[in-house]
Each structure stands twice: as C-alpha cells, then as structure tokens.
C-alpha cells in the first residue's frame, strides 16, 4: 500500500523527513550546519517533515527518512514502526540511532536505580531498561555513523539515495585517515591510548590531529581487533577499569565495543 502511494511521484522532488528519538539533536543539526548546501538541498528534495526547522508538515509517505536517536521508551518503540511504515528508505544517523548512544550505558546498569538517582519521583518517568539502536526494531536501509555524523558524509548519503546508488562511505579505520592526513601517530610517538585502530573512519582523524587519542565517536570499523588493541592499551598503562571505560562511551552498545568492555569489566578488581 505504501508502495502504491509512492507510484506516480517519480517526476516530483523526493520527499525528505527527519525524525528524532532519544538524542542530543546534534546529528539533525548537522543538516542545518550545511550552510552552503541547505537552500540548494531544499530545492533538490522536498523537506516534508523536519520539526526542528519548520512547522509545515507535508503528509507522508516519504521517499527518504533520516532517523536520529535511540529507542528508550515503549511509545518510541511503537513510533519507529510507524516511521518505517511511511518511509520508502530509512537512514539512521549518528551513534544514538546506530548503536544506542551514550544513553546505552544504562544497558550495563540497573535502570531503576538510574531513575532514582536523577528523579525524585521515578514513578513519573517512563523508560525502557535498555537504549537500543533503530535496527533492533525495524529494517534500516543505511546506517551513517558518528557522534556527531560528518556533514560531508551526510550530503553524500542523501545524494546517493536521491540518485539511487550506493553511498561512498569508507568502513576502514581512523588509522587510514590519520596516515592520509600525515598526522603523527599519538600511540606510537607519544604513548597516548588511542581507539583509532578499531574505530571507523569518518571524522578525518580529528583527535590525533589535535594531539589526543581517538575516543571512538564513529564506532567499531569493519573488522576490529579490539583484544589486540586492549593488550596495547595495557602496555600504555591503562588498568582494566580505564580500558573498560574507553570502550564504553558513545558507542558502548555497538557489539565489538560492548563485548570488549565486558571482558575488561570481568577482569577488573
């Protein structure tokens, strides 16, 4: 039925919708931060639903939906199914949507206790025990990583979907970007703990260029050898607790990082 609704729209501009779940708004802000491209983009696609930018709402279905944020409430678990139903293509943007985000730290703790730490009346607050990526609830056509996402990558993904081709987004590690940039390896040269070898490229090797170790904003790369890196982190002086924490931040729920942080947690005194 949704497919039938789409028929006859080929001659029109594709309809773009932007949806928000639990998040900081930074990834949808990335779209507004494309200052030079925003007005041309609004010519190429019809911005049909984007409450952060406009109160005008064009009825669905939508050709492309960008989804920011993770699922943390029962009503959001229902809402994402509705978003999927009205979307021809669904692209998740950012660490929250692709791995559960920083709020997935609750997955390692007792959420009832979390609720009582923050709120005087925990009974008013409705929340799920786990923060989960969108892909755990509905089928996703493309996942764009980052905390926050990179603006050029976002424009590339939008262009690819409008042109009906595969996005050209690398899945190799930050190390490759670091070498290309000609940055000094902070792990080798300075002994700084760095997640670059196991983290997907996309930021442009920002942290090493600023003399700090990568802290994993883009989540695990294609084939991460986290255990090998963990051995190195120990040599560089990290204890189990620190090693657990470095894998347990904005992509704590991504499988490779989750499993590695668990190993360190079990070995911590």
């Amino acid at each position: 039925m949704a497919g039938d609704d789409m028929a006859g729209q080929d001659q029109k501009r594709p309809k773009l919708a932007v949806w928000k779940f639990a998040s900081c708004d930074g990834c949808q802000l990335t779209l507004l931060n494309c200052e030079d491209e925003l007005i041309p983009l609004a010519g190429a696609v019809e911005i049909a639903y984007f409450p952060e930018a406009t109160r005008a709402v064009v009825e669905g279905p939508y050709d492309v939906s960008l989804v920011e944020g993770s699922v943390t409430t029962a009503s959001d678990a229902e809402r994402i199914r509705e978003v999927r139903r009205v979307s021809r293509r669904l692209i998740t943007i950012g660490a929250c949507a692709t791995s559960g985000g920083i709020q997935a730290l609750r997955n390692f703790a007792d959420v009832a206790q979390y609720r009582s730490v923050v709120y005087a009346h925990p009974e008013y607050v409705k929340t799920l025990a786990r923060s989960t990526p969108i892909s755990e609830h509905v089928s996703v056509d493309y996942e764009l990583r980052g905390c926050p996402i990179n603006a050029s990558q976002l424009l590339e993904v939008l262009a690819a979907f409008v042109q009906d081709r595969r996005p050209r987004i690398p899945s190799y590690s930050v190390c490759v970007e670091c070498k290309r940039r000609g940055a000094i390896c902070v792990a080798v040269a300075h002994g700084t703990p760095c997640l670059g070898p196991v983290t997907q490229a996309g930021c442009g090797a920002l942290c090493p260029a600023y003399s700090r170790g990568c802290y994993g904003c883009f989540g695990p790369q294609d084939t991460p050898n986290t255990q090998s890196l963990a051995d190195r982190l120990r040599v560089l002086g990290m204890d189990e607790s620190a090693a657990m924490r470095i894998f347990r931040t904005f992509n704590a729920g991504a499988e490779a990082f989750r499993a590695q942080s668990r190993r360190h947690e079990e070995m911590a005194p």
Partner: protein
Amino acid sequence: MTHKLTQGDHVLKVDTLARVEGEGAMHIVVHDGLVADVELRIFEPPRFFEAFLRGRAWTEPPDITARICGICPVAYQMSSCLAIEDACGVTVPEELRLLRRLLYCGEWIESHSLHIFLLHAPDFLGYPGAIEMAADHGDVVQQGLRLKKAGNALMTLVGGRAIHPVNVRVGGFYRLPTTQELRDFRPTLVRARDDAVATVRLVSGFDFPDMVQPQEYVALRSPHGYPLEGGSVISSTGRAFDVGDFGRHVVEEHVARSNALHARLDGTTSYVVGPLARYTLNHDQLGPLAREVAHDAGLADECRNPFQSIVVRAVELVHATDEALAIIDAWDGASAPSVQVPPRAGIGHGATEAPRGLLYHRYELAEDGTILDATIVPPTSQNQPSIEADLRAFVQARLDLPHDELVRQCEQAIRNYDPCISCATHFLDLTMEEQ
C-alpha cells in the same frame, strides 16, 4: 478551527512543538473564558547523564556532558571543566581562560544565529520555517547562514569541530591554535560583526506583542566582562551568591507531566535565565559597539518583553563577534595547552552562561578522581515555570483570537526562550484543553 475561546471550555494543544531543540508539547486548558492550566510537556525521553557519570573518571565530563546538547556542547564542556577544576583546586592561566572564552563566543554566534534566523524570525515574518522564508527573504536567510557558519568555523578552529568539540579537556586544551590560524580568521569575524550589526537593525524593526515579564532575572556577574565563563550569581531583586551556594538557593522539583525538573529559587515560584536576564543585569559590561547598537535599537537598560529577546540575542551576537576579534588581536600565545589537574577528594561547582542561560554543574569526587555524584541544572529547566507563567498571561489576554492564530502565537511565545528540550530532559508538547 476559527472559533473563539471566550465562551465555554476549550483546549489549545500543540503535540509537537516545531523549531525548538528537542521534543516537547504545549497543553492549555481554558475553563469558562479563564485559563485554568498551562503545561509545557517534555516528552523527550530521559537519558540519565547524572546517573551514568557516577563511576566515571574526573577527566571525562567534558566529552560526556557535551552529548547532552548538540546545539550548546561548549556550555556543557565549560561548566563541567570549571566544576572539576574547582573540586581539584586548580584555576587555569589567563591565556587559557581567554581561549575558552573565544571558543564560547563561537558557540554563542552559532547558537544565537541558528535561533534568530532559522527558528524565531519566521514567526515575526510569517513563515512556517526559514527555508520557506528564503523564497521571499533570501538575503536575510543568507545573512543568518553566513553568521552561523562563522560561529561554527570559530568553534572548529578552537575546538576541532562545531558539534561536540574534541579539543577541550579538564585543565585547558589538547592543542593550541597558532597565532597565524587565529589571525587568518580575522576577516571572517569582521564580516560576521558587520552581519551582526545588520541583524540588530533587522530584528529591532519587527513587531513585538506587548508583554511585561514580572519574574526575577538571574544571571552570572563576572569581573572578566559580559558573563560567559564563570562569575557569581546575581538577580534583579538583589540576590547575590557564589556558584558554590547554587544548590542552597535553587531546588529542582520533579512534576508528573515532564521529564525535566523544574527549578525554584529560594522558594519563589519562577525566575528567568537567558539573554534578557543577562542583558538587564550586565548591560554595563557589553562592549562599546554592542552598547551603541543596543541603544540605537531602542533597548533600555532593562528589557522585560520576552518577545524582544530576539533583539537582545542580536546584540549579544555583536558582542560575541567583537570580543572574539579582541581576543584574537591580543593573542600572544600560551606557554602550554593545558595545566595538570591532579584529582583529590572533594566537591566542585561550575556555572557558565549557555546561550539559553545559566548552566550549573556540581561534581563530588573520590580521592582517585572517581565521580561519586553529579548534578546538572540546565537553563531550560530553570525557565520552564516562567514559560508557563508567560503563556498563562499571554493566552488570557488573547482569548478572542481564532484558535489557529492563538496556537501560532503561543508557539512564538515559547520560542522567546529558545528552549532546549534535549538539555532540559533530564524537557516540551502544546495542547490546550477546553473543559
């Protein structure tokens, strides 16, 4: 719906407030021509930052709390750095304090231009959003985008990137910008300052509904100029206290309808933080250019019409661009990008002026720097009772308006506060109920 609300029972509701940062709604109940209840509902789901900060290291809050808000990450980074450094008994050297201020100017420019041009101006000019507005006011939108881009570029220059900067650490920065990099940025800032002055002229010509805000105004007061990073707390009723006493004066209440906590000051029902409070309490500390354009725009020393907050934001844009230029022109390098902040057991407090108002952090540390307890009080949860009080008075005086127009004006009134719902949740939905 065009019926009027002076007779009988009515509900005004907006289920998803547009052009605000995060997810909220408005619900107003009118009973026999009297506004019976006003609720700003925050259905942005809770993310539990204060809970999962427990057990983390003292070095981690700048990166972690930045993720509370993609629009004002620097505010979170600055308040958290100040609080941790306070707990550890460290004060950063003057040049690092100035570099923090420069980064913060970038965030003010980015956030204020986003709100003025993309979120708020469409209300005054009669468009659903800036993209629709661009068809008739292309130059205005381009001016706004240019300013926003300059703010983002300044954040990128000092912070590494505009959203969740990577270059901030407890004790200072990871890498210092070079004098050449800062000097090279000068032309962009000069253009931005011209655009900011033009912005004040533009927005001061808008039509402002009559409204006087009676609430107490609260802002920081700093010896280092217009309040940005640090200072102590003052108010329009003469209250004055150190940031360390914030928790003794401000109590957060949890109400059933909202995932944000409501802040109360010494038992009063509501107070206001943000541009109007900052300007009213600190206009004497604005730079000469900002003071001059404020005067030309017709702003008195005290501004109590929340609809004019857009003018004050524009004045603050002038100040931020002007001060950023002054910092760059005087920059003579720093001896090191950061100072050591060795951990110790203790409690630290930090407050800075986020674009939306005062943002307070408090951390309790163990001897090894493990965080035992964290409290974060964002500006929007402090403003929420005032937003509701404003709406109550605003709607009561406008019940003869057609429903759709009243709802539109209520949304505009809420946007006066540039509410950041992502921040306040730990925050917003407009429905109006006729009973």
